[in-house]
């Protein structure tokens, strides 16, 4: 938002690009969960474009992005976040869009030293090089600390009016936002990707390890965002809806999984991901009962439905809290 504003102030025509990878925290999450105190629903990229008065193009890169997540040339960060490869990928896609649509250069809101992996003095040139953008990539917020780029050399942009932000503190950005009169702005970078989330990364690693290969489909990564995930046995895990919104979302997937729900008490919809025998089913049913309102009852009646749509009733004693080892929770 700030980088775009700095350019707009110089009379540069700016249009925004927002990439949708499937791992974005915004979007689906607000649609799935019940948030009693949530802010009004909005897409922050669109909202920002509107505040700036610029066009925004949202580009879906779900399939292409898989290679970034599965085979990151520069490795992962603290979790399964391939930040440097991701930045290179997105700037490359932006370069392709720029060339196709007759634009002259790319700007990003990066700040030198802001992020530990992708915004260091030694890695920022890697992004410029590997994206193929080279000196057509301008970072207005820290440009004075970096070599001159094409738009500066050509005089399209006045370098003296660019900035020299450096380091992890966001105070300079907040001061600049205040100067421009921005009272509200989207969450700063880093918290908007599920791959930076430890718990999500743990679930993705579990998915890869139990399937025996580092692959995923869009539905896999969507389901990792939703519900409690428990793996009581190596051959199956449970996805347990945590509220009405999640139960409704999981409803859409129920035909692809054996699923359970209590009929004698209120409770969640639970999907079973994996292959199960009778003993596993009973365990799954006892866990399902544990997460419903019958958790203190002597027994709970549930309906189990297989992937062919055949249903049968199960009656089980809910599992006690202390019977669930913490390591079952993914």
């Amino acid at each position, binding site marked *: 938002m700030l980088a775009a504003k700095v350019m707009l102030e110089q009379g540069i025509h700016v249009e925004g690009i927002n990439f*949708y990878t499937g791992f*974005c925290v*915004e*979007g*689906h999450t*607000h*649609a*799935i969960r019940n948030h009693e105190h949530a802010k*009004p*629903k*909005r*897409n922050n990229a*669109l*909202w920002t*474009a*509107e505040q700036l008065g*610029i*066009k*925004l*193009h*949202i*580009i*879906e890169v779900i399939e292409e992005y898989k290679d970034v997540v599965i085979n990151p040339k520069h490795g992962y960060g603290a979790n399964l976040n391939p930040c440097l490869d991701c930045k290179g990928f997105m700037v490359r896609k932006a370069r392709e869009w720029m060339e196709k649509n007759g634009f002259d250069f790319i700007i990003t809101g990066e700040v030198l030293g802001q992020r530990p992996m992708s915004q260091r003095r030694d890695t920022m040139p890697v992004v410029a090089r590997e994206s193929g953008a080279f000196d057509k990539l301008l970072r207005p917020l820290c440009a004075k600390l970096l070599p001159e780029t094409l738009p500066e050399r050509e005089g399209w942009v006045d370098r003296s009016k660019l900035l020299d932000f450096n380091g992890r503190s966001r105070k300079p950005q907040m001061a600049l936002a205040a100067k421009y009169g921005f009272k509200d702005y989207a969450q700063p970078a880093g918290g908007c990707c599920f791959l930076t989330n430890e718990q999500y990364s743990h679930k993705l690693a579990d998915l890869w390890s139990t399937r025996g290969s580092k692959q995923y489909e869009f539905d896999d990564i*969507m389901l990792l965002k939703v519900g409690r995930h428990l793996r009581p046995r190596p051959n199956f895990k449970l996805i347990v809806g945590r509220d009405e919104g999640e139960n409704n979302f999981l409803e*859409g997937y129920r035909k692809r999984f054996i699923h359970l729900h209590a009929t004698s008490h209120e409770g969640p919809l639970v999907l079973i991901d994996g292959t199960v025998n009778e003993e596993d089913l009973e365990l799954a049913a006892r866990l399902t009962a544990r997460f419903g309102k019958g958790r203190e009852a002597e027994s709970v009646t549930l309906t189990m439905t297989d992937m062919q749509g055949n249903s049968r009733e199960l009656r089980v004693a809910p599992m006690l809290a202390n019977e669930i080892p913490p390591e079952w929770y993914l």
Partner: protein
Amino acid sequence: MSHFVLDARYLLCPMPVIRTQNRIAELSPGDTLEVQATDPGALHDIPAWCRVHGHVIVSIAHADKEVSITLRVTAA
């Protein structure tokens, strides 16, 4: 000028707005597009996307769990 319908039901945001954007790229000024969605986020995102691109919202209907947004494509 023609009328088109886009079924974006059961997609979660931002997919309905991405599908809308991609469909509009194939249409001509004056055409209308009715977008059907089930994610209530579409009620916010699609009008916002139209505002930044200059397309006109003709009507918005919200019944039960379904949303219907009709917009007119402009030359913007």
